[in-house]
Structure formats: structure tokens, C-alpha cells
């Protein structure tokens, strides 16, 4: 377990009490975001997202398979996340940790419940063949706020993802590699994560700020301003006022974050 010296802890709290942060940001200010797509030659969709020093690579590999029996006419998303040992000395190889599972599930729900992807268009033949997108997150450098960085990386990779036209001929799948189409997206979604330090909800926490966290709150908002996912973490409570204030900040900042996805 990372132990942050008491002096750093106090220092961060005192700064926040005075509306300041160690890296000079405002309490509701994001670090620099930098997104690059198409970074993995063998992945149909891919992105590298840097949020300050935090770095996440996402690769998307499609394959054609059977739909789930209860949803025969829609495609399938499979989200998997690896907190690589290189990203943080506290990340260990082996079966996914609770942190890794929570990250994958929060990102996955953000895509799924917001209906970001139009899964109907990923159906090739109802009940028989649909596109399955394997979305693999590789966290390679953890300098704080993996949730928002991972969420942006996934959104960018989906936006860049091109699938071959597939059709069914004589009950076999035929691919037309020449003619590709974009993964159909209904909208983009940004996740805004806060930590509670003292009485303040602080946006986009750095690693040190995360380490002093008592409570964490992530708010997912679509580009239309709809609240589509939320996750509280940490072993301290938050108040209703904390919650509503954070939602307001997230709504205000949403367009600014999503602007980073305006690439071609």
C-alpha cells in the first residue's frame, strides 16, 4: 500500500482549503489532455490518451460471433482492463485486482448505459451473427485519475474504429476488407472524477491528491448533457450538497473535455 507522509497529506489539505493545488491548477481545472488515435497497427480501433502524466492505451479487436440469447439483434461489447505492473509500483501481475475490475466496470457501464454505441447496427444476422468488440484497456502510467483518462481513451478508440463490411453468404460470413464502416456512435461521453479533500470536491485528482482521498465521485455525462453513469468510491461518506455541487461542475466542464475528441 502506498503511504503518503502525513506532511504531504496536510500540505494538500491546506492548499485546497485555500483554493490552491500543488501543480497550480484551480480546483475545477483539468490537466492537459492529449489523444492520439490509430496507434496500434493490428487493432481496428486504437487510442493513446495522456491526461497529464497518466497514460492509457486502448485497442479494439472485432470478431463475429453469436449474440446473447436475450438480445439477439444487437452487437456485443466486451471491456477488459489491465493495470500493468509498469504503470505503478503497487500494481501486481496476476488476476485482475478489485481496482482493475472497478475501473473496467465503470468505464463499461459508461459506454453501455449511455447507449454510446448503436449496437443494433452491429447486428449482421439476427440471432446468429453479430459483431463483438473486444475493448482492451492497457494502463501504462498512473499519475492519477485513471477513470477519466481510460474513459476518454475508450471513446476515442471507438470513434477511430473501422470494421469491414460483413455479410452472410450460404450461412458463412464474408468480409469485404476494402469497404469499411465506422462503429456507429450515438454520442460521446465524458467522465468527470472528483475527490473530496477537506470540504471541497476537487476535479481530476493528481496521484498525491488521490492518495489523501476519503471519498471519490465519478460522473458520466453525454454530449447532450444527460447524466448517464455515476460511481462513488472511498470509505468516507459525501453529503448531498457535495454530490449536487460536483454534478454542476461536471455539467459545466463537459463540453471542454469532449472537445478533445474532435479529431478526424
Amino acid at each position: 500500500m502506498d503511504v503518503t507522509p502525513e506532511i504531504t497529506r496536510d500540505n494538500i489539505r491546506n492548499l485546497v482549503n485555500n483554493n490552491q493545488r500543488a501543480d497550480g491548477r484551480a480546483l475545477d481545472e483539468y490537466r492537459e489532455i492529449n489523444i492520439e488515435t490509430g496507434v496500434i497497427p493490428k487493432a481496428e480501433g486504437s487510442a493513446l490518451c495522456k491526461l497529464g502524466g497518466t497514460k492509457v492505451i486502448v485497442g479494439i479487436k472485432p470478431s463475429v460471433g453469436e449474440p446473447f440469447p436475450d438480445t439477439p439483434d444487437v452487437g456485443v461489447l466486451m471491456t477488459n482492463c489491465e493495470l500493468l505492473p509498469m504503470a505503478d509500483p503497487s500494481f501486481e501481475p496476476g488476476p485482475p485486482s478489485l481496482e482493475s475490475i472497478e475501473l473496467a466496470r465503470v468505464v463499461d457501464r459508461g459506454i453501455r448505459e449511455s447507449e454510446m454505441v448503436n449496437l443494433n447496427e452491429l447486428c449482421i444476422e439476427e440471432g446468429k451473427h453479430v459483431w463483438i468488440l473486444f475493448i482492451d484497456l492497457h494502463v501504462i502510467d498512473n499519475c492519477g485519475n485513471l477513470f477519466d483518462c481510460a474513459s476518454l481513451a475508450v471513446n476515442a478508440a471507438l470513434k477511430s474504429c473501422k470494421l469491414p463490411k460483413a455479410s452472410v453468404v450460404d450461412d458463412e460470413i464474408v468480409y469485404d476488407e476494402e469497404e469499411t464502416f465506422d462503429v456507429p456512435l450515438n454520442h460521446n461521453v465524458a467522465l468527470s472524477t472528483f475527490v473530496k479533500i477537506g470540504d471541497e470536491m476537487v476535479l481530476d485528482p493528481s496521484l498525491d491528491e488521490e492518495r489523501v482521498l476519503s471519498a471519490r465521485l465519478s460522473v458520466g455525462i453525454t454530449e447532450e448533457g444527460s447524466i448517464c453513469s455515476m460511481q462513488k468510491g472511498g470509505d468516507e461518506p459525501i453529503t448531498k450538497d457535495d454530490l449536487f455541487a460536483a454534478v454542476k461542475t461536471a455539467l459545466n466542464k463537459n463540453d471542454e473535455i469532449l472537445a478533445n475528441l474532435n479529431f478526424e
Partner: protein
Amino acid sequence: MIFISEERKIRADGRAYNELRPIKIEAGVLERADGSAYVEVGGNKILACVYGPKESYMRRFLRPDTGVIKVRYNMAPFSVDTRKRPGPDRRSNEISKITADALCPALMLEGFPRSMVEVSIEVIAAEGGTRCAGVTAAAVALADAGIPMKDIPAGCAAGKMDDEVVLDLSEIEDKNGQADVPLVIMPRTGEITLLQADGNLTDEEFEEAIELAIEGCMQVSEVQKEALKTCYSQE
């Protein structure tokens, strides 16, 4: 249309928009456990039990300054329509983690350094909203075990269905619903210890859902207290 009758705003199962499903809580239902509780909410049947505070072989979770809590949420293979493979999966691991976070603020474990309180939540029958009902059951089991507590956390979800914000979605309502917002509070202060949201809600709907869920939690809290009273009076 299907679930809410237009004129009377009554749901398919006869409930008003702000009405809980039938709820029943019983404390002290197991012999071996240090504390236990049984909760029924609608078609959910949930057992929770507590052992501890005690030493643990899971040394790396222990802390020198306080006791810690460890939660295992599990669904029985026969609790759902299609048999579930036994053992933990990603969903249950996540729920175990957020349940521990939901209970932790209510516990006063400073007097038990290097010890662990083990909470086990077993979903025997599932019908929507098991994570909130699981926290509700675990909180009663902790009290039954005599663990020192500031408050007894209570859980309940609000949701959105046919563009209406309603309380405590049943399984069939959830499947056809537009959003689900599980919430756990500490009733004395109203502080939030668990919160998730899935779906699509406007700013106003979200605030409405939170207010409604808090009301629901307060009602659940009353049933919890009643169960503990009944249990103590039997001893």
C-alpha cells in the same frame, strides 16, 4: 404505459411511485455466526452474517491503527432464472468492494487494531435491487454481532421508468427502465456512503431520484430498527 397507469400513477404491481416493495427483516437467524440477518424485499431473499472482530490469515489487509471490514457478496447459483456458475465474478467483486465502502463509515473499529470484521452476504433469491438489500441486511447483522456503530446504514434505489422517477425498481421494472440509482445513507446524518447511477437522467430528474431514494432509505431504516428491537427482546 405498461407499468404505470396514466390516470392514477399506479405501477403494474400496484405500488405508488414512492412506495417500497414489501419488506421484511429478521435479525439473529443463524446459530454459528456472531451476527446475522435475513432480508426480503419483493422477491429478493438475502442472508447476511458477520464474524469478528477477529484475527485473520489475510494479513496484508490488516491495519495497525484500526480494525478493518471485509465483505463477500455472493449470488447462489439457483437465485436467478438461468443458473449462475458458483463463485465470484467481476460483478460480485465490485459489489463486495462498494458494500465494504458503504458500511465502513458507520463502524467504530478503532478499538480493534489488527483485526478483521468479516461480512458475508448471500443472495438466495434475486429479484432486482440486491446490492441495496444486501447492505441493509449486512448492517443489521453487524448490529446483531455487537460491532460498535455510529449508525446503521440503510439502502434503497430510485429509478426512472416511462419518463417518471420512481422508488425501488423491481426486476421487471429495471429491465424496461431508463435509469437506476442505488443509494445507501447513514440515516442519522443523511450522509451518502454508496451511490451509483446507470441510464439517462436530466439534472432535475437526478436530483429528484436522490431525494426519493433518501426517503426510501429512511423507511428501510425503520424496518431495520424494528427487527433489532424484536431480536433483543427475544434474548
